């Protein structure tokens, strides 16, 4: 890396091979947050948000309607689950925009599960 473009001296190759192995071996076992790195991420996140909001609302209302039909409590559960669904939709959007992926469940910033190191991953 330092001696740039010295065409493939054997020692340089060894070094690069070691680096590549380290990257795929033990070193790279941390999942970083999804929004980092990729230059396309801004647009890809923008495309996700709107539908994220609506999908949870649809699922929530759907569950409400089905439960209503099953339990015979006509409008009430739909109303309740409509509200829960919109809350879930907002939660989803919040998580996407905060770079926490589409994850369910919060993660305390430094809770460090089996995952080693890394800062604010989802």
């Amino acid at each position, binding site marked *: 890396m330092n001696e740039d473009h010295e065409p493939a001296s054997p020692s340089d190759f060894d070094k690069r091979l070691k680096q590549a192995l380290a*990257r*795929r*071996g*033990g070193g*790279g*076992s*941390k*999942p*970083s947050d*999804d929004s*980092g*790195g990729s230059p*396309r991420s801004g*647009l*890809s996140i923008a*495309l*996700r948000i709107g*539908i*994220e909001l*609506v*999908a*949870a609302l*649809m*699922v*929530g209302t759907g*569950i409400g309607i089905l439960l209503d039909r099953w339990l015979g409590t006509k409008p009430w559960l739909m109303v309740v*689950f409509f509200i*829960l*669904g919109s*809350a*879930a*939709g907002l*939660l*989803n959007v919040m998580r996407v925009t905060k770079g926490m*992926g*589409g*994850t*369910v*469940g*919060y*993660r*305390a910033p430094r*809770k460090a*599960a*089996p*995952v080693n190191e890394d800062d604010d991953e*989802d």
Partner: protein
Amino acid sequence: MAAEHTGGGHSPLAQFEIHPLVPLKLGNYDITFTNSALMMLIAMLAITLFLTLGARRRALVPGRWQSMAELSYEFIANLLRDTVGNQGRRYFPFVFTLFMFVLFGNLLGLLPYSFTFTSHIIVTFVMALAIFIGVTILGFAKHGIHFFTFFVPPGVSPVMWPLLIPIEIISYLSRPVSLSVRLFANMLAGHTLLKVFAGFIPQLLGAGVALGITGILPFVFVVALTGLEFVIAFLQAYVFAILTCLYINDALHLH
């Protein structure tokens, strides 16, 4: 000016119609071979050819074709390593297959007279549902009953649980819906828009010289939109793949 509303009798939605090609029946099930199935088959063959022929030469310094094949491999391998980490490597075949299938479906759909199978909600929904069920099973296999702690937000007092757990469950159940609707809606909207704008061109041309000149405007727009559609085709496949990775990551390391 007195022309009909529909240009050549073509609805912008006619491109999404399913036509049976070879009627087949298996017991009571209708397994007719349709144009949608034909495009899926073509996509599958195209992917196989693209990768096997690309990898055939195995040159140390890759040519154009080989480097495209290697690029697509690297792209997904890095995506998986960045989002899931090292344990994610074993899910590479699955994510790679999904990505290539969606990507080729989107791109082949941009060819004139072809059919976009990803513009059908049932196709995308089945893929999303397979991912959803697979990931849930993976979570259960990995963590057993502990998987349910997934729905309990940590650091929240138990008083709030009755309210928050349903929200978390709805949020979890909304995954396959948002995953499938996103791909389907983008493809459907993009292709409809292209067709609508393309439909303006013959209408304006048919309306005489003065108006015919303005026909260049929708034409320019269609060209620009086609470029945009290529970006969208790639991005949607990317989003599909990255969300699959994120879901696998969630199932592997809860919180």
